[in-house]
Structures are given as structure tokens and as C-alpha cells.
């Protein structure tokens, strides 16, 4: 089984080295691909020096298009499994085997690491928590399956989804939108309990106004995903 870990990174020079080291320690058999989404700092140089494969986007394309670049790489280079792993140090390499297992056993087409299956594993700002809660309710209703952490970017997918994503990957709010699209295309989605860290460096301050604005935009995007023509499997 060829496994590719795709690490999207935008200005993560403080975190990227630690992320790569962490992954090498826990999953030495996997190949690491850093997709540098137009960073203006030395993210790319550091990733090279830690001996990861690096794809440099000439300018910032946004998280959706950056992730799809990674999936296209996986598709062309014959990978069986691709993992999404944030470059900001939020995800933990010691949790990766749990994400991989259902895929390796063929029990799921995509696994999503959830911070909320076991309560008390994660605490964040209240607006964020409420936003995620509302969003997960809505998505659960839409796809008729309980989803607890729709914005989690800690995921693993099999070859079928790698091919699906290379053809189409949502741009605007890829994590929740992808769940809706994958469900509509008939893929099996599994959530796996996961531990995550709070962001180490940099700020991600979320105010109530921002959270509400984000929610409205995501709900609109998802509503469109529901009526959208889905690309074939």
C-alpha cells in the first residue's frame, strides 16, 4: 500500500519542521508531500531541508485548490491512500494509524478524524464550538448520517476518492462541502475519534460575528452542493 500524506501549508515556517519530524517518527512508510500554497516565508526551504517532497504553487490558490493539487499528485503517482494533515501542528501523527485502519481494512472510503466523538478531548473558543455544532447538525440531516466534526481537515481517503477528488474538489469550504459531495457520489464516510492540539503558533481568533458569517456562507455553499450536478465516480 502506497500512502501519501498531503500537508497543505501557508506561511508555516515555525511549525512545518516539527510536523514533518512527527510524521516521520510515527509513519515512516508513508511519503510526505508539502503543498506550499504561495507562502512568503521560508516554509518551502524548511520542508526541503526536512526531506519532504514539496510542490510550490506560484501564488496563493486557497486551501481547496492546494489540497486538490496534492490529490492530483497522488493520482498520477499511483498512491492507494492519501491523508490530509495540516501544516500548522494541529494534527497529531500518533493519531494517524486510527485514521488509516478503516481504509486499510476496506471498511470505509474516507475517514474523518473527529474531536467530538469522545467528549472532553478538545476545547476551543465558544463561538467556534457552537458553529461546528450547528454545522454538524445540518450536514447530518442532509446526508442522513451522524457527522460530529464536519470542519476537521484530518482525513484519509482510498484510491477511488483520490481519483474522484482529482476530477473535482470544492474550492470554498472544502471540508464540509466534500462530505456532502462524497455522500451524494455514494462513498462510505467514517468518523474516527481523534486527539488534536490547539494551534501552536499564529492566531486564529474567531469572533461571534465571524462565526455567524462563516456559518451562513457554508450553509449556502452546502445547499448548492445538494442541488449541484455531481461529477461521476
Amino acid at each position, binding site marked *: 500500500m502506497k500512502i501519501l500524506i498531503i500537508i497543505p501549508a501557508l506561511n508555516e515556517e515555525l511549525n512545518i519542521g516539527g510536523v514533518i519530524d512527527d510524521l516521520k517518527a510515527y509513519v515512516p512508510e508513508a511519503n510526505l508531500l508539502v503543498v506550499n500554497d504561495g507562502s512568503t516565508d521560508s516554509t518551502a526551504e524548511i520542508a526541503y531541508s526536512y526531506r519532504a*517532497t*514539496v*510542490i*510550490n*504553487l*506560484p*501564488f496563493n*490558490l486557497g486551501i481547496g*485548490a492546494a489540497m*486538490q*493539487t496534492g490529490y*492530483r*499528485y497522488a493520482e*498520477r503517482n499511483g498512491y492507494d491512500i492519501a491523508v490530509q494533515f495540516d501544516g500548522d501542528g494541529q494534527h497529531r501523527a500518533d493519531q494517524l494509524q486510527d485514521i488509516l485502519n478503516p481504509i486499510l481494512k476496506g471498511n470505509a472510503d474516507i475517514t474523518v478524524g473527529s474531536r467530538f466523538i469522545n467528549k472532553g478531548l478538545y476545547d476551543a473558543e465558544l463561538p467556534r464550538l457552537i458553529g461546528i455544532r450547528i454545522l454538524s447538525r445540518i450536514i447530518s440531516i442532509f446526508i442522513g448520517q451522524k457527522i460530529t466534526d464536519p470542519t476537521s481537515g484530518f482525513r484519509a481517503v482510498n484510491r477511488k476518492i483520490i481519483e474522484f477528488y482529482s476530477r473535482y474538489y470544492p*474550492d470554498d469550504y472544502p471540508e464540509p462541502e466534500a462530505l456532502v459531495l462524497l455522500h451524494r457520489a455514494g462513498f462510505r464516510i467514517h468518523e474516527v475519534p481523534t486527539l488534536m492540539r490547539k494551534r501552536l503558533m499564529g492566531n486564529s481568533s474567531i469572533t461571534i460575528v465571524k462565526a455567524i458569517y462563516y456559518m451562513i456562507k457554508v450553509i449556502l455553499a452546502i445547499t448548492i452542493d445538494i442541488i449541484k450536478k455531481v461529477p461521476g465516480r
Partner: protein
Amino acid sequence: MELITLFATIINIIIFITVVELTRRNRLKERYSLLWLFSSFVMIWFSVSRESLHLLSRVIGIQYPPSLIFLLGFLFLIIINIHFSTIISELSDQNKTLTQEIALLQETVKSRRGEGGK
């Protein structure tokens, strides 16, 4: 001819000629000029022909026929703008794919070179 219809005719003829001239000089692609040409042609038609203007006004219930010209102009602008939005979406999609392909290619070249150097 009422003053307003004369005014509308002149403006639309200017638009029509401008679009033709831009297309002729290759500063506007034919496929994007068609909607403009069609719109200004229809507008000229209704500006010049009182009968069609009054007939259509009566059919759709407009009391003051010259305002039909403004309504048509407004509708055409909306259609042209939606058309442009689809073109922009298509272009940004192509732009995204091109950017991804360049980045993937660069990586391929770099890794091949690395192998050759060993």
C-alpha cells in the same frame, strides 16, 4: 420623431459602431461581441420603429412607450453581466488548473534532475 427616441437611436448606433470597430481591430473577440451587437440592434430597432415600440408597450402594459427602451436596455445589461460571470468562473477554473499543472510539472522536473545527478 420624439426627442427621446432620437437620443436613444443615436446612442445605440454609437454603441453598435463601437462594438463593430473593437471587433474589427481584434480588441474584442467575436464571441463576446455577439451579445452586444444583438442588444444594440434590438435597441436601435425599437428606437426607430415607433409602431413596434408602441405595439410591444401595449402588449406588456407599459403606459409610456419610450420607457420600454430603458427596460430593454436594463434587461440586456443583466443578461450580459450574467454571461460575463459564467466566463469569469470558467477562466478562474482554467487558471486554477493551469497553476496546479505548472506546480506539479515543476516538481516532476526537479525530482528527475535529482535522480540524474546521483
